[in-house]
């Protein structure tokens, strides 16, 4: 009897075990996070926390706790990053989608480069340059670093979103009296909007989670939530680290649900074209 013809109860059992392993791999760390967020005391030999409570939540959310301040900084940086990325991605994406540029695919590839090169040496170099021109430790510096990452997603998705707008829709507008700009404003942009919103969300989440670049360029003056989490866990305060991690999860999960509705198949089909 070979593996393919296992009797059905055995096959069901095998499937259940595999599923459980998968679930554990994915949700196990999350569960640990939850336990730590509500653990008051948890020492080495115990398998589970000795005491549960909300003391650390209180500490995180108290007015002089810096968790809320760094949450504010994180969101502010993410919003600025989104604006900067879209300011570049909308015209660039439109040009890449519409104009017959000779190096189209090469240009798209260039935007991928920051992802291909190992991050650490790049950020060390950026930090050095930023230090010389006084951008180290500033919000602007951090936003620039985040945008270099966010632009990949933004430009790729924006150009896909514009490519999925049929040219004849624009021609119809021009034909009925719209100038090139009015046509873009009233036809192209509204139709491409779902794709652009999706790319904005990706950039926002990417910025919110970003650690390495912020660490090299922002510290010590700019403290974002991931940096706070890092400091807390380095200091052995797993409760604070877990609570910040949970806070970071909220926008991620919320936006993922939204993105799923905005990114339609016709846009996805155009990615990288």
């Amino acid at each position, binding site marked *: 009897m070979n593996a393919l013809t296992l009797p059905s109860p055995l096959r069901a059992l095998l499937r259940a075990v595999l599923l459980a392993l998968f679930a554990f791999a994915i949700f196990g760390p999350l569960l640990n996070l939850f336990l730590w967020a509500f653990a008051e005391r948890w020492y080495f030999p115990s398998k589970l926390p000795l005491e549960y409570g909300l003391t650390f939540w209180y500490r995180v959310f108290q007015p002089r706790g810096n968790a809320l301040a760094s949450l504010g900084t994180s969101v502010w940086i993410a919003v600025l990053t989104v604006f900067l990325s879209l300011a570049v991605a909308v015209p660039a994406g439109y040009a890449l989608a519409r104009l017959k540029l000779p190096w189209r695919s090469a240009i798209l590839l260039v935007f991928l480069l920051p992802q291909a090169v190992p991050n650490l040496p790049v950020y060390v170099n950026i930090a050095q340059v930023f230090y010389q021109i006084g951008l180290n430790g500033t919000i602007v510096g951090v936003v620039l670093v985040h945008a270099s990452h966010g632009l990949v997603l933004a430009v790729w998705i924006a150009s896909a979103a514009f490519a999925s707008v*049929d040219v*004849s*829709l624009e*021609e*119809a*507008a*021009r*034909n*009925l*009296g*719209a*100038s090139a700009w*009015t046509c873009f404003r*009233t*036809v192209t942009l*509204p*139709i491409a909007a779902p794709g652009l919103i999706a790319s904005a969300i990706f950039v926002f989440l990417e910025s919110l989670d970003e650690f390495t670049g912020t660490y090299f360029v922002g510290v010590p003056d700019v403290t974002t939530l991931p940096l706070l989490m890092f400091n807390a866990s380095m200091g052995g305060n797993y409760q604070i680290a877990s609570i910040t991690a949970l806070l970071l999860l909220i926008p991620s999960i919320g936006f993922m649900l939204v993105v799923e509705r905005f990114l339609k198949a016709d846009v996805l089909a155009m990615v990288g074209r």
Partner: protein
Amino acid sequence: MIATDRLKANPSYLSIEALTVAYGATRVLDRVSLGVERGEMIALLGSSGCGKTTLLRAIAGFVRPESGTIRVGGKDITHLPPEARETAMMFQSYALWPHMNVADNIAYGLRMRGWTKAAMAARVADMLKLLQLDGFGPRPVTQLSGGQRQRVALGRALAIDPHLLLLDEPMSNLDYKVRLELRHELRALQQRISITAVYVTHDREEALTLSDRIAVIDAGRIVQVGAPEEIFHRPTSAFVAGFMGADNAIDVTQRDDGTLLAAGGGPGARVRAHFRSDSARLETGSTPSSGPDLVLSGTIEQAVYIGQGYRYRVRTPGGDVWVHAPDRVPEGTPACVVVPRQAVLLFPPEPPDSATTSAMRPAA
């Protein structure tokens, strides 16, 4: 030039002179000249890639011509941007904006012209009534059927009261039955509001039923312009004859007295005879006396049932010809194809190397 002088003396409403359009080294339109009178519907007929759509897009301003002029009502619009031309185009895909409802689609051109809300609403209502779409205003265009979309696209184009209505194969995405219906509706509407219209199609039946005149285009040139009856019955070239359905082409001999013989049947000049398979008749009995008609004898190679009868491929010494007949005749039967003299269109014989009539010719 005489032609130019005539145009200047009595200019057409839409007048195109020596228009040349090139994509890179390929000439898509080669010195095309055409006049369309006010209130006239002209069909641009040709196979795909012949340049008919390019001509339409040049009139709309989407294609920049290399040389030549386009005038509407005496005004040179050759170098105006599309939005300044007062032409309204109906696209093959309809190009309705999916983020707007029916009313907003129709009102778009009016909004661009700064109409008030009340005036726009009244105009949209008029259009919906004209196109029998009453009450469809608030519907999203994505929920309409093909025929309804086509009407909305027409309404959107007509709402601005354009100088020219440009139609780019607007029926090609519809079912055959809907197409027949809308064809007559469109023609009636065009005549009622007497709008000047240019209609691009590759469907000869559509061109014949819809238009006042037809311009047949082949390889970037207009090869014949005329009323549908004229184009159909008196094509001036073998290409037009073939395109208008004279699908049989065979070399024959013309004697000095004008009568026609199968090739090699006697002394005379070699000519190319074109005729429609439904204008010839199939004789399976004794060989009919020749008289003035063209008689081609051969054997039946293939029979195809076509509903009203059969379509036969008859192998003759000069080549295969198709003929329609009401009755079933078995393959292999010796038969004669008799073509009435007035149904035969004669053209000079084809030079041996010009098999590709409609292929793109190099720029002259």
